[in-house]
């Protein structure tokens, strides 16, 4: 099974990606889809600028995908990560895992997100609604803890 792995600046459509996975198959029992969105609760954010390391981002996502495929018997896997300017409400990352049983699909999707968060070379910078350039988003300690638990 060859996973679908893409890094792109253009928006993506989770429904279209899920349809590519289903595509008339009768052997899939469970599909877990994760969508990460650009959040702006305080109306202070104009956009996020996602910088990435071209080449390494692709290589690292391929490594993380291979690790997931070695751990769980997945029937299909899609990972899409955007870079560039992303507006509040827009989607940043998509992971879809399909498996016979739900436990495998849930575990793989959550593992992939934990690993992407801490290993994929992307960095978020805030552009504020008042026109100023804000800070680089700080990493969260709980993201490291989330990734760590898969090593136990």
């Amino acid at each position, binding site marked *: 099974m060859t996973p679908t792995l893409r890094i792109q600046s253009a928006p993506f459509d989770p429904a279209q990606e899920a349809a590519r996975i289903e595509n008339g198959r009768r052997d899939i029992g469970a599909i877990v889809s994760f969508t*990460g969105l650009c959040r702006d609760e305080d109306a202070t954010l104009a956009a996020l600028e*996602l*910088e*990435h*390391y071209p*080449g*390494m981002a692709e*290589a*690292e996502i391929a*490594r993380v995908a291979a690790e997931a495929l070695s751990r769980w018997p997945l029937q299909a896997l899609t990972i899409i*990560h955007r870079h560039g300017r992303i507006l509040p409400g827009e989607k*940043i*990352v998509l992971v879809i895992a399909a498996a016979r049983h739900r436990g495998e699909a849930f575990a793989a999707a959550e593992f992939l*997100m934990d690993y*992407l*968060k*801490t*290993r*994929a*070379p*992307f*960095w*978020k*910078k805030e552009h504020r609604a008042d026109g100023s350039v804000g800070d*680089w*988003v*700080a*990493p969260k300690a709980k*993201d490291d803890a989330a990734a760590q638990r898969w090593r136990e």
Partner: protein
Amino acid sequence: MKALYFAWVRERIGRAEEELSPPPEVGTVGELIAWLKTRDEGYALAFENAAVIRAAIDKAHARHDTAIAGAREIAFFPPMTGG
């Protein structure tokens, strides 16, 4: 060896990439950081808290004790915040 800088490491140093020719006694990622740090104020600021700096050799994560011998490309960046 080609060096790449990302996010606030890039901003503090003031450039995205450059060619580096460290002296032969610089053997590891950590030693390369220590050597770069002495170059000017930008590098000093970028690497002031060396422990948080992540590195990659030829597009794969590398630890600070990893040897740089044979590396064609080495990158320095803050902890990742994608996803």
